């Protein structure tokens, strides 16, 4: 099979980008979407043209590095599948496929299809952790956790932080990502000590980065390669309300006044 790709080319963050159309060479329909880009890039290199820059790493759907908006949908046509796990057999011979970078002002374009997703790291640094003593590993199952709580935390932890939720959201909101990361730890016994600070700090980091606001349209969960549910956004809102109310009325230790 052969396809045409209409792809976004942009030299760097400052320059103005635009679309270019390229013909693929003959493809095997079992090639992945990224392999299709690889072979087009080989052709481009042979012709002395700059290859198309795109993000990828594991190519097995677990690292969250690949991105791309394919025909308007982040991670391509399927549900619950990352770009790296999308195959050419999902397209028709002769298709013209539009490939754009994730578009959100907090994710500036570095080059072509590569965007800077550093704001996600900043959000994690603001509270996406549990502070523990390092040293010898604790006994397994020393802390009792109900199966339901563990499973829900696992559902949230499935987030690979790719940013497709931001890319799909009509408002470029990061609520699904933040919801998953907050809920994953806030639900577990180990996360309780820092629960309120976690949600307040992570939301502050999210706002600081300039993401948009959630309007409850759920485009995020619809494109999530890990099918993270927007129940975690509701949970985030609830935790935020509870933390704000508690913070506003709770008496503070004397050291906090120093």
């Amino acid at each position: 099979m052969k396809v045409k790709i209409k792809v976004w080319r942009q030299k760097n963050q400052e320059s103005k980008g635009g679309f270019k159309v390229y013909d693929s060479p003959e493809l095997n329909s079992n090639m992945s979407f990224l392999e299709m880009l690889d072979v087009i890039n080989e052709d481009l290199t042979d012709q002395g043209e700059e290859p198309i820059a795109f993000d990828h790493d594991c190519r097995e759907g677990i690292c969250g590095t690949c991105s791309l908006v394919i025909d308007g949908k982040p991670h391509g046509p399927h549900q619950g599948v990352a770009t790296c796990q999308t195959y050419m057999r999902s397209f028709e011979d002769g298709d013209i496929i539009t490939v754009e970078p994730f578009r959100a002002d907090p994710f500036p374009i570095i080059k072509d299809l590569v965007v800077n997703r550093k704001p996600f790291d900043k959000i994690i640094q603001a509270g996406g952790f549990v502070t523990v003593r390092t040293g010898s590993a604790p006994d397994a199952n020393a802390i009792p956790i109900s199966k339901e709580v563990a499973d829900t935390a696992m559902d949230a932890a499935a987030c690979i932080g790719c940013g497709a939720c931001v890319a799909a959201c009509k408002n470029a909101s990061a609520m699904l990502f933040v919801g998953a990361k907050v809920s994953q730890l806030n639900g577990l016994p180990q996360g309780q000590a820092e629960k309120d600070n976690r949600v307040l700090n992570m939301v502050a980091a999210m706002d600081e980065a300039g993401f948009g606001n959630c309007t409850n349209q759920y485009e995020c969960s619809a494109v999530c390669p890990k099918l993270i549910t927007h129940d975690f956004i509701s949970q985030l809102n609830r935790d935020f309300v509870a933390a704000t109310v508690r913070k506003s009325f709770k008496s503070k230790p004397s050291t906090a006044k120093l």
Partner: protein
Amino acid sequence: MNIVTALLKTSIGKKIIMALTGAVLIGFIIGHLVGNLQIFSDPEKINAYAHFLQGLGPALWLIRLFLLLCVGLHIWMAVLLWCENKKARSQSYTASHTIQASYASRTMKYSGFIVLAFILYHLAHFTVKATNPEYNEMMWTLADGTVVPDVHLMMVAGFSSLTVSLFYLISVGLLSFHLSHGFQSMFQSVGLRTETWGRALKVISIVLSLAYFAGNAVIPLSVLTGKVSRPDSSIEAVAESVSSHLNTPSG
């Protein structure tokens, strides 16, 4: 961070203001509709009810101020959120794509602003009576002898105009549309929606909006079709009194 800054300064806080003010407005519009449905009873009923509301005095003004505050906050937050959202994606996609965002959810700002225009017209029409000064002449004598504004006659006279009725129908239609997303959305915004009852919530939201629309639509439709009417003499009496005012220099 205290509650006020959390509400006004954070993304989630602003959404919570939208939801809480939205909830107050929903409570109001449902109460308002139930009050209006008294038009299907004797004119005495709705006129006495309107008189009772007018008689609340300072309490009425407190309620009005509170509603104004809610509408003001709702619109202020809508505009703020909208601007922030536009700023978060200054370059839009070439291929537009929607998977599950409802049409109502994508047009909230448009339905909202048209509803605002309608609210202003509605206040000018029936509350201030600026559009129809002759409504000031419409009076009704209650069973106890008190002379009060004839709200029933105002409604009949207002909705006898096809244009006015159509405008009301379209506006409450848009408001119902606004609610079909707004009602379910507010539960998510305050963290009360989950997948466990999300489907039920969606159904409740749509049924509520349809019921709200039907309840409102039946009023102008009943007037237009003559199901709710007044003896011609009461309308003529007003017309005469207005023209006699206009003819006397002092009036």
